[in-house]
Every structure is written in structure tokens, then in C-alpha cells.
């Protein structure tokens, strides 16, 4: 009875750690390949287009409306205290530190993570990965490395873009729609937003890039059993990456806050 209970409890725990272990192994093999094998720059550029360029619209809209709604909500509260011009500082700090990186990561997960696991998963179930291997090409070198490098470069840029647009949209809403004094708004914003806030946002972007790419590629590479398997892998890739982003975000905030403390000093 007790043994049954332990197995019941143990099985998901073991499979969870196996899963994490597999993703970590994939990550370490990828980095080993980046260091030791020749890098396929053409595929890297192709992925940059796929990840960086094709995500532009999504990231812009995410940034713009997040900044806008955040400015409006903050204004409604702060204006009661006569602190309307502090809205700029609140918007820019929170977009830099949290909203920009997290929302961009979630959008990229939906767009890029899903397509990565679907593409690699389809290759897996249609024997194309076996064909690669049979032609003496390591699937990690050919499929995972270009995607990883492209994500490592694109994500910080996308997040920076999202932050910039978010701040601009906040400014627009506050100044033109809500009649906040522009000079004070900008002055407060510049005073309270520090370089370290931006660095924090970009460091998060980099970490999220790795989470998304490894989880999605792992799901693709381990998918099985035809179209259903690929569909399942894709869904799981999106769900797992999103959860990983949200969970890691908390720990990153706690850890990075030691290095880049929030607030004015």
C-alpha cells in the first residue's frame, strides 16, 4: 500500500527530472557543438529572418498596447494623488524590468517555439532526421544550433524593441490623451529609469531565448507517432516554454535584483 503510494508519487517526479535532464543534455550538446563544430551561417541567417524579422509586427503590437494600457491604468490611480507626471517613471521601469521581456517571450513562444517544434517534429516523424543522420549530419548541428544562435541574438533585440515601443506608446497616451505635462513626464521617467533596468530586461530576454529554443527543439526531436504526435509536441512546447518563462522570470527577478537593485539610489 505504502509502496504503491510512493510509486504513484514518484513516477511523475522521476519523469519530470528525466525531462529536465534531457533538456539540459540537449543544451550542453548544443553549446559543445557551437564551440567544436562548424557553424552553418546560412541557416543561422535564415532563422534570423524567421525569428527576428517575422516577429516584428507581433512584438510591436504587444509593446504598444501594453505600454498604452499600463500608462492609462497608472494615470487613473496616480492622478487622484496629483502624481500624474510620475506615470512615465512607472511605465518605463516596469516595461523594462518585467512586461517587455515576459510578454515578448510569451509571444515568441507562441510564434517561434510552436513552429520550431512542429517543423522539427515533422522532420522526425517523416524520417527526415534519420536521413540527416544517415548523411553524416548531426541533427543538433544542423537544426538546433542555428536556431539557438538566432534566438540568442534576436530575443534581446526584440525585447529592446518592445520596451522602446511600450515607452513611446505610454508617452503618447499620457501626453496626448490624458493631458499629462510632457516635460515633467519625461524628466521623471529619465530620473527613475536606470541603465540597470534596461540591462536587466535584456538579460532576461537572453535567458528566455535559451529556455524557449531548448524546450521547443527538445519537444520536436522527441515527438513520435505521426501527425498526432507532432500536434502534441507543439502544444507541449508552447505550454512548457510559457510556464518555464513565467517561473524563471520570478527567480531571475530575485537573482538579478541583487545585481541590479530596483529603485532610485
Amino acid at each position: 500500500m505504502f509502496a504503491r503510494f510512493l510509486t504513484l508519487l514518484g513516477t511523475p517526479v522521476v519523469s519530470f527530472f528525466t525531462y529536465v535532464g534531457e533538456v539540459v543534455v540537449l543544451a550542453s550538446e548544443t553549446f559543445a557543438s557551437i564551440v567544436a563544430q562548424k557553424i552553418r551561417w546560412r541557416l543561422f541567417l535564415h532563422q534570423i529572418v524567421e525569428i527576428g524579422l517575422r516577429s516584428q509586427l507581433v512584438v510591436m503590437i504587444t509593446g504598444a498596447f501594453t505600454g498604452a494600457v499600463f500608462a492609462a491604468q497608472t494615470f487613473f490611480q496616480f492622478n487622484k494623488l496629483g502624481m500624474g507626471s510620475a506615470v512615465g517613471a512607472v511605465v518605463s521601469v516596469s516595461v523594462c524590468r518585467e512586461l517587455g521581456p515576459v510578454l515578448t517571450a510569451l509571444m515568441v513562444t507562441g510564434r517561434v517555439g510552436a513552429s520550431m517544434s512542429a517543423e522539427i517534429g515533422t522532420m522526425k516523424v517523416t524520417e527526415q532526421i534519420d536521413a540527416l543522420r544517415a548523411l553524416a549530419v548531426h541533427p543538433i548541428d544542423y537544426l538546433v544550433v542555428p536556431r539557438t544562435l538566432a534566438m540568442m541574438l534576436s530575443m534581446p533585440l526584440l525585447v529592446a524593441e518592445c520596451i522602446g515601443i511600450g515607452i513611446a506608446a505610454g508617452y503618447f497616451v499620457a501626453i496626448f490623451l490624458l493631458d499629462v505635462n510632457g516635460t515633467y513626464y519625461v524628466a521623471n521617467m529619465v530620473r527613475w529609469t536606470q541603465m540597470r533596468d534596461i540591462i536587466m530586461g535584456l538579460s532576461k530576454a537572453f535567458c528566455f531565448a535559451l529556455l524557449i529554443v531548448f524546450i521547443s527543439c527538445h519537444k520536436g526531436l522527441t515527438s513520435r507517432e505521426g501527425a498526432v504526435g507532432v500536434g502534441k509536441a507543439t502544444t507541449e512546447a508552447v505550454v512548457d516554454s510559457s510556464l518555464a518563462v513565467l517561473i524563471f522570470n520570478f527567480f531571475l527577478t530575485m537573482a538579478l535584483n541583487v545585481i541590479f537593485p530596483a529603485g532610485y539610489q
Partner: protein
Amino acid sequence: MIAVRGLKKKLAGQEILCGIDLTVAKGETLVIIGRSGGGKSVLLKHLVGLMHPDAGEIWIDGENIIGLSERKLAAIRRKVGILFQGGALFDSMTVEENIAFPLREAGERNPKTIREKVNEMLEVIELEGEQKKMPVNLSGGMKKRVGLARSIIRRPSCILYDEPTAGLDPVVSDSINRLIRRLQERFRVTSIVVTHDMKSAFHIADHIAYLHQGGIYFYGTPQELEISPDPLLQDFLLGRSER
């Protein structure tokens, strides 16, 4: 060139291969025949390390490939080409790019050389002018031929064909058979051919192995197979079910 010793493999709880022993000498063509679902494709995949056996040894060119890492296997795989049963073309690439893939991976950069070699291959597989088509727009037989071109373009010293003529019309089938023969005669390519096409088996084989219930049931020359009185083999040759 290729030696298999006591190869065993269970898949999904089912014994597919239970103790296969095979030897293929350099420059020889071995044809493997057997009932559908008998494990022929599984056997071929083991020979290039795409599947790992539960027990047994596989020697390629004097090297045991069991337990080699994926990176070490790459050296073996450059020597041994494999044609997959379904072609396994890269569906994001055109016919031309598929065929040129092994060359590009080998570091060939000159577009002119690549184009010449690809055109030469297209001529061999009788698909001239289809360079720009995507794999989804090809018929099954065309896919197979493109896959064949891709696996032989770098002239491996050994080629494994998984049903090279299945789904092809008799004329193209015959030209593929000739191609296999020619590769063997001219370049002393070692071949293992899995086929259901008995005419082509007799045409190209030096030896024929009949795979049955996970073991080699018969091994011998085509003549020996033809005169074999074994009812199981005769049924297979004549295509008789239940008597």
C-alpha cells in the same frame, strides 16, 4: 565489408530480429527478400547506426559500430549510403537542393560543379528538368528516385537500398536495376538491396537472403534459390498464399 553477428532487436515488446548473421563481401550485391513487416527496413537501419540493437555486432570495414557515438558514426555513414523506403526527402528543399545536399555538406562550394553533378544525377534517374520541384509535388516513384540520387551522389563505397524499385514503372525499374549493377561493376560498390521485385532480385543479386521470423531462413545464390524445393521459398517466389 559488412558483417552482422547475432543481431537482436525488440521493438514495442515484439521481437523483430532474433539473431541475424550475415556477411557481405566487398563489391558484392546481397538481395534481402522476405514478407512485408518481416524487419528488413529495421535491419538496414541498424547497419548505419540509426537504430541500436539489443544484442549482436555489426562490423563495417573492420570496425564494430555498436556503441559508437553519433559523431563517430558519421565517418561510417560517409562510407555507407542508405536509400530510405519512403525516400525521406527534405521537404523544405527543392529536388535540386536535396540531391546537392551531401555535396554541400562535404564542403563543395562551387555552384558550377554542384550543378553539373546534380544534372548528371538527374539524367541517371531520368528526372531531367524537375530541379525546381518541391518534394510534396512529386509522385512516390519520383521521390524514391530523388532519394536514390541523394544517397549515391557522393559515391559511397557501400549502398543500402530499401526497395529501390517499388512503385516504379517497369521501364524505370529496369534502368534502376541497371544502375545498381553498373555501380557495382564500375566502382565495386558493395550493395544490400531489399526488394519485393523478384525479377530485379534475380537480375542484380550475387546472393539472396530470405528473412523469415527474425532470422535468415535461406542464404544462397539466385540459382540455388530457384531450384530450392523448400515449400516456403517456392510459395514466396511464385507468389502463392495458402495452398
